[in-house]
């Protein structure tokens, strides 16, 4: 692994990452930009570690929404994005538009206008609609209230890279409290 986690912070648990998960723009940029992988920038370290651990399983697919690709390329131009089997660009298409209309009607977007900028609502809604339309099990984003709220609207799991720093009990260890009162 390129980055180092702070002492006492459990590593990202690979088993906690869904097989098909959409990565939000902020996570993707931090995963690629090495200046964020410093000991005083835990979010940057989280994103990089998530990216490496998630891609360590060949069957896993990380989805990147078309609006995120636009955001990623907002800065001065790069070359064409790599086409790799495990990183799947997903489009905002006719079906995604139908999904967006179904799960987040205009009334919901209007109700959030006071709290968030219109652009933020639009971009985040487009990204979560892409996740839903392309059958992602979860959206991995940073602790963003609007994104969390939208994921709830779309009935799709919301995760931050830090949420995945979980130590599971060893296999076969009974979960606390589950056996009481049985038999």
């Amino acid at each position, binding site marked *: 692994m390129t980055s180092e986690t702070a002492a006492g912070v459990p590593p990202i648990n690979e088993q906690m990452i869904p097989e*098909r998960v959409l990565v939000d*723009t*902020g996570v993707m*940029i*931090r995963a*690629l*930009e*090495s*200046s964020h992988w410093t000991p005083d920038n835990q979010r940057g370290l989280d994103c990089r570690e998530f*990216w*490496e651990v998630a*891609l360590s399983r060949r069957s896993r*697919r990380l989805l990147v929404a078309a609006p995120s690709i636009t*955001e990623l*390329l*907002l*800065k*001065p*131009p*790069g*070359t064409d*994005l*790599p*086409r*790799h*089997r*495990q*990183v*799947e*660009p*997903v*489009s905002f*298409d*006719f*079906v995604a538009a*139908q999904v967006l209309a179904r799960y987040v009607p205009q009334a919901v977007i209007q109700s959030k206008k006071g*709290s*968030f*900028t219109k*652009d*933020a609502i639009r*971009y*985040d809604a487009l990204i979560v609609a892409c996740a839903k*339309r*392309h*059958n992602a099990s979860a959206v991995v984003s*940073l602790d*963003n*209230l*609007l994104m969390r709220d939208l994921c709830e609207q779309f009935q799709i799991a919301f995760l931050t890279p830090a949420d995945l720093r979980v130590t599971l009990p060893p296999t076969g260890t009974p979960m606390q409290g589950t056996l009481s009162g049985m038999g």
Partner: protein
Amino acid sequence: MSSSSSSSFGVSRSRAMCSSATRRTSASRTSPAGVCCRSQQRVTMSSPRHPDVERSTLGPIDRGRLPGVAADAEALILSFDGGDITPTTVDARRLLAASLAYLDALASVVQLIVPMHEAELVLTVEDIAPGSVKYKGRAALRRTDGTLHPVAIRSMSDTLDTWMRATSLAPRAVRPKVSQAVQAARQLPSWMNFNASVGGHEYEVSEAARSGEVPTIRSTESLRARVLRAGGIDPRVQFDAASEVRSFSLASTPELVIIAGRSLYGDVDIEATVLRSARAPFQIVGGTLTHIDPVDEQHDPVETWDRWYKVSGSPWAGVTDIEGELGRND
């Protein structure tokens, strides 16, 4: 009823469809549905083939090999339910006609997608269950050397389901069979549901037949998909995609078929003009492949993206407030 007329799913031996058959019979019995059948009966039905091909490459099905094929094949169940259906109140001929028309159509889709010299569709009956109108069997694409062809019958059933919902989109070679399947399913009483289960996937055949011509929407799309099949006299490429509810087949040019063939069972990025059902779940019912790009399956994805980011000049270097730069701060 003679053993000949009790062939699987009511197939007549005089039909071209039923080119070879193997039976293992014991005591005859009459099912409650009035269908004479034989327990432990095994009957095979192959897809239509050219007579010359049949003689030169496809011999009669070997009795000894059939159980092995059946064991590895995809489960196939045709069932009818709904309303107050009981085995004594239904006309077995209608059910068999609908079943046969469905299987005929499936066989014609198989022949369209898998060249006839590569494999034949083999259907066996394992059981005609008493007490219900349910035909259980197996379906497989078996090569001439006896091994199974990797293309799943289920994916063919996906295509048939699509075309039963929009027969005008079916290629001309299979449209008559698909239309017959639709008509036969429509002849069933309106309260009856005709369902097929192929390889564990459920298909609402009567619902598909009654849905009429589904309105479609044409759109140009890009999609990550896996190549299942590429080729045919009318060049087509069959894909599945995690984003789609069913596998789908697109018309193509020979050049794109060749590119797709190099990525068989691998992922590709495609651009296509697709026709989607205008009703949820908006499945792809047809379309034309316009572009295809292979994707990297060999290199480490982290290194690949790191290299791209560096070559691109690390565009986000020095930006500390990323969300602010994106205009996405809460």
